């Protein structure tokens, strides 16, 4: 009589443990992730200084001074302008003088949003040269 051995079944690996780990990782990433849609504006450039060198150049590209008051309002040539009005006025200036430079002098009491809004308007108007200047107390 021939006795046959019973066939051994392969070891069954339970997938439940793996699913548990995956679920825990999934929940961790869902809970800890915060979705922020952020952009950036460069505030420091180390490019070459392109300031006009000669008197004629300086006359042709005389910079425009734009002041931001402590209340966040912008003043162009001493007159208060709205954000939309500022963009329009600067667009007119750029049409006549594309190389115009805008100097922004913000009040220290103004907030970051006021400065960013003004920078936005300047960029939208087509101005390519803009500087932010800051007054420092003399020691």
């Amino acid at each position, binding site marked *: 009589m021939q006795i046959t051995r019973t066939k051994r079944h392969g070891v069954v690996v339970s*997938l*439940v443990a*793996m*699913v548990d780990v*995956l*679920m825990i*990782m*999934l929940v961790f*990433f*869902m809970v*800890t*992730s*915060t*979705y*922020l*849609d*952020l*952009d*950036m*504006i*460069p*505030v*420091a450039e*180390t490019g070459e200084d392109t300031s006009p060198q000669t008197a004629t150049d300086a006359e042709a590209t005389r910079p425009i001074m734009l002041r*931001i008051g402590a209340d966040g309002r912008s003043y162009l040539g001493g007159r208060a302008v709205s954000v939309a009005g500022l963009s329009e006025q600067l667009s007119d200036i750029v049409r006549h003088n594309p190389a115009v430079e805008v100097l922004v002098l*913000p*009040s*220290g*009491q*103004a*907030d*970051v*949003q*006021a*400065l*960013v*809004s003004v*920078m*936005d308007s300047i*960029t*939208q108007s087509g101005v390519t040269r803009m500087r*932010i200047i*800051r007054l420092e107390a003399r020691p």
Partner: protein
Amino acid sequence: MKLARPPKRAAPETIVALIDVVFFLLVFFLLVGRMDATAPFDVTPPIAFEGTDMPGGGATLAVSADGQLALDGTERTRDGVIEMLGERLAADPGLRIRINAHAGAALNTVLPLAAEIEGMGAQDVVLVVTPGAP
């Protein structure tokens, strides 16, 4: 003779599909999420229409509405921030520094800080903004 029917076995539930879904979700969150240090205080960046996409990496300097500072999620004094950034800039001069200032932060806090960082030799200083509606 009465023949007994063999008991019906319940069909084994396939959990392979579940694993697939969970795995896809996991990979999605891994790809979409970016680990970033958040400030220990509330920071709502200003809204801008002309911002550009912000790449990751670099040091993040958070400024709260009342002038508190935090570097990479840890609250620090102004001197502490300058010292830490000085060390990091000495090790890596091309380090990007992201100033994540609250929209209501006063410019007399943010601008001198940006100028000082630039003066330390930072070549890439950016202001974090929230994109506005087009």
